[in-house]
């Protein structure tokens, strides 16, 4: 039982290629790709010699990787549930919420399925994609849809979920399906509507009273090999500069 994770760890550590001083592995939710990418540049600029390696995936996949012994120094999840599981397993220390995000519906440019409102998502012959079951954005979407049942009729969420043609690895993959006009619509975070995506999609308004707030927690991993730098990265995320970068990518500050 212990054998397998230890083996995996050995292999993963081996791939790291020589332990350098001042490098950390940050495991972060896919929705943080752009913001953390920019923050890495800024952080490394301010801390010569430090190296931040970013590993992005759906938060659930990251949790599995960390549970299987992947060498993470920092974990940033798109929901509190994944972080709580990591905390229960003793894999992280003292998580703190650092940003929030809201959901948005995007459709390809030209809106081929004519989706003007949330209610239109339940229409027949609408091709929807959504992130994998268990990925935070999919769970937030399901919560939002059940909120909407009161407004649009009891079977609304069932009909919308019945229109799903593909389950994507993470929220970015779902957004790309729509920007490539392969699907009629998907749910993303507001922060996912980057300038690059915005050029090729249209945004459908979600009534604010139905929307859900996604809370992102971050924590240093218990097994970190470089606690000092890991903590510095977390500090940077909470710093004025870090928060400014996050806001510029569409995130909201946490309460």
């Amino acid at each position, binding site marked *: 039982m212990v054998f*397998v994770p230890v*083996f995996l760890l050995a292999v993963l550590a081996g791939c790291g290629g020589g332990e350098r001083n001042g490098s950390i592995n940050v495991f972060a939710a896919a929705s943080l790709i752009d913001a953390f990418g920019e923050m890495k540049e800024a952080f490394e600029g301010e801390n010569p010699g430090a190296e931040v390696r970013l590993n992005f995936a759906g938060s659930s996949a990251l949790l599995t990787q960390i*549970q299987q012994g992947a060498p993470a120094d920092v974990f940033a999840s798109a929901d509190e549930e994944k972080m709580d599981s990591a905390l229960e397993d003793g894999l992280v220390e003292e998580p703190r919420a650092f940003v929030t995000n809201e959901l948005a519906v995007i459709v390809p440019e030209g809106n081929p399925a004519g989706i003007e409102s949330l209610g239109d998502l339940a229409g027949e012959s609408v091709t929807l994609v959504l992130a994998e079951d*268990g*990925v935070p954005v999919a769970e937030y979407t399901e919560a939002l849809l059940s909120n909407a049942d009161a407004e649009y009729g009891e079977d609304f969420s069932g009909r919308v979920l019945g229109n799903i043609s*593909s*389950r*994507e690895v993470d929220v970015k993959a779902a957004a790309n399906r729509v920007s490539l*006009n*392969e699907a009629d619509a998907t749910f993303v975070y507001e922060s996912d509507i980057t300038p690059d995506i915005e050029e090729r999609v249209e945004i459908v308004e979600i009534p604010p009273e139905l929307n859900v707030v996604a809370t992102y927690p971050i924590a240093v991993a218990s097994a970190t090999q470089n606690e000092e730098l890991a903590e510095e990265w977390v500090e940077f995320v909470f710093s004025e500069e870090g928060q400014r970068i996050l806001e510029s990518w569409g995130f909201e500050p946490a309460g």
Partner: protein
Amino acid sequence: MAALALLAGFIALPLVSLVIWTLSEETWEAMTSPVALDALRLSAFTTAVTMVIILIVGTPAAYVLARYEFPGKRLVDSLVDIPAVLPPSAAGIALLLAFGRAGLLGEHLTAFGITISFTTAAVVMAELFAASHFYVRQASVGFAQVDRAVEESAMVDGARGITVFLRVTVPLAFPALLAGAVMSWSRALGEFGGTIIFAGNFQGVTQTIPLAIFSELERDFDAAVALSVLVLAFAFVVIFTARYMTRKAQGYQE
């Protein structure tokens, strides 16, 4: 000797780890979960369709490649090899840009109300793209090794071309055809990158076993392990059957 032991150990250890995890964590139940059963059914169905198409189209195509000279033959020959070298994810993007809803050809199909992406047909196309090479290449090598004199003497005896092909050439090339078919089928079964990019990932429609393993990683690690063990068992059965049948076929010829 030491090198071989190292290689064998390197391959065996991960496989043994899979089995040990399954035994110790009692992941058997996950094998009969709806996700696993749907994936199994879909993989069996799509690879069967893929193989039928490959055998029907690939056999005469391989024969032509082995026996005839024509302008552009070298180009066609190289084209057949490309999917084997191309990373599957690149193949998936290529398929998407050709047959996707906004693709080169797909755009025109959409106008007629035909959409391929997110359907089981797209899964078969991804498998065909990746797997056809392995059969066609092996089969054409097999056909090239069949002695022309044997075919010609059958012709002299009055047999028609197609009869000679089916009764003489195909049986003589059988070990090569079988080996190629097994390789092709394994590649189709393992197809992942092209499928997830071009066909998408939806239970029962496009989620084959490799995609189900990937998806279950997000939810239920035990289920992912169980499915992996299942394909491992598959792989053993396929390899041993193929070995046995090839030996038997060679026995007939001698």
